């Protein structure tokens, strides 16, 4: 269980990015995180994995509370897929990129190779293993970025705009793949149809505040969505 209690995050200029947000997420649960541009979706994802420091509140994964000491453990258990895959793919070929995480976490080489192979096959991109990330299409890059995170065997996955830059076919492929992944997923998106297909719960952010934490029927509630700037 991932539990967030009264979480607040500030930008370096002192402005509130996230303001006293509370929610929890069970293992295997899919939650959509929606909100207008600048609502704080990316900041919340970055805070959950300790990239943005919180000014108050608590992030708890099982019995572990996110602190400087537990940062490494939390990052091994929660994987973040960035909005722009180019930020996430930086090694000379895809195999090395996927292996970067397990190796950094001290996995023995045999286990690393096993994990990389499993991640590639889980996403059906074994043929891309030797390719340079620079030479991949948008859809392939997205799957590659997911593979880099899957290889760390995380319990929860955080996605920042996973359907951005994708054509309809790549989007359909991605939807089918995400539906099959057993991990709990928190998906920040503007694509409401995509959120409705995948998620049972919806978090609605407005100017850093959580204004709704409801079932997916909120996606049909035009007044609430409009009120949140969507």
């Amino acid at each position, binding site marked *: 269980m991932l539990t967030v209690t009264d979480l607040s995050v500030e930008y370096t200029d002192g402005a509130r990015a996230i303001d006293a947000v509370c929610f929890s997420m069970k293992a295997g649960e899919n939650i959509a995180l929606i909100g207008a541009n600048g609502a704080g979706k990316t900041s919340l994802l970055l805070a959950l994995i300790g990239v943005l420091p919180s000014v108050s509140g608590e992030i708890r994964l099982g019995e572990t509370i996110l602190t400087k000491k537990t940062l490494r453990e939390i*990052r091994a258990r929660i994987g973040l897929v*960035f909005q*722009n895959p180019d*930020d996430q793919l930086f090694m000379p070929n895809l195999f*090395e990129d996927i292996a970067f995480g397990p*190796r950094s976490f001290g996995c023995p080489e045999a286990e690393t190779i096993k994990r990389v192979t499993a991640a590639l096959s889980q996403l059906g991109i074994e043929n891309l293993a030797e390719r340079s990330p620079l030479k991949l299409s948008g859809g392939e890059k997205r799957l590659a970025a997911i593979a880099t*995170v899957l290889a760390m065997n995380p319990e929860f996955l955080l996605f920042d705009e996973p359907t951005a830059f994708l054509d309809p076919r790549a989007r359909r492929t991605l939807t089918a793949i995400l539906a099959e992944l057993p991990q709990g997923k928190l998906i920040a998106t503007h694509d409401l149809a995509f959120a409705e297909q995948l998620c049972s719960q919806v978090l609605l952010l407005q100017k850093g505040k959580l204004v709704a934490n409801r079932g997916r029927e909120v996606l049909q509630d035009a007044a609430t969505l409009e009120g949140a700037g969507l």
Partner: protein
Amino acid sequence: MSDISARLHNLRALESLSMGRTVIHRVHPLAKLFSALIFIVCTASFGRYDFAALTPYLFYPFVMMALAELPYKLLLSRMLIALPFCLFAGLSNVIFDKAAAFTVVGVTISLGILSLMTILLKMYLCVMAALLLVATTPFTELTAQLRRLHVPAVFVMVFEITFRYISVLLEEVYAMTTAYKLRSGSKKALDMRHMGSFVGQLLLRGFDRAERVHAAMGCRGYSLKSIPPPRRQLRSSDVLMLAAVCLPALLLRFFMVGHLYMTG
């Protein structure tokens, strides 16, 4: 392909070469690191007029390139980047050190020219040894090896970050110059009056992008303190390779075979 795009491609090309599967690529990074270091120390330690003594070392880059199946042209183009610096350092010798060294078919070669030739040969050998190491060993493995040898983490991080961010910066330059050219009519180069804001924007964008890449690395366990376990243990074949490079290099250094043959 534009100049920046070509540079970016070249930068990645060397990294791609390190993913090869030849006999040299399979050697343990520690063995390659030590053999390159010993080779560089040996060649750099020769005197300024020891040109002949250095010539046997030319075997090393050629043999390594052949065994590792590396394209000579690419490595040579990289090596030439260091040429102007060495020429600049050596030219003053040609001017001031005019004493005769020896005569070849009636032409007197001065000590200055001999020392310039020695500097150039040393540069060729040292830079090639470093390039061969980088072209046959994945950069992450190389830096991981340095960490395992307890090289201060901050130095290793500077190597890693510089290597990683040069391409990030070039990508940003490429995107910005393309956008600039598309909206600047027939201009081929950046206008001087736009240079200030262009460089400023580049700095900000590069910084922003570098932060995101660093965050992505951190999310996947990268830290100054983490030392990845070795991908495999040192084998006897690795020690053999180390000996095959180091013993001749050391023997040549201490017995100066080339020098003997020249003066004898």
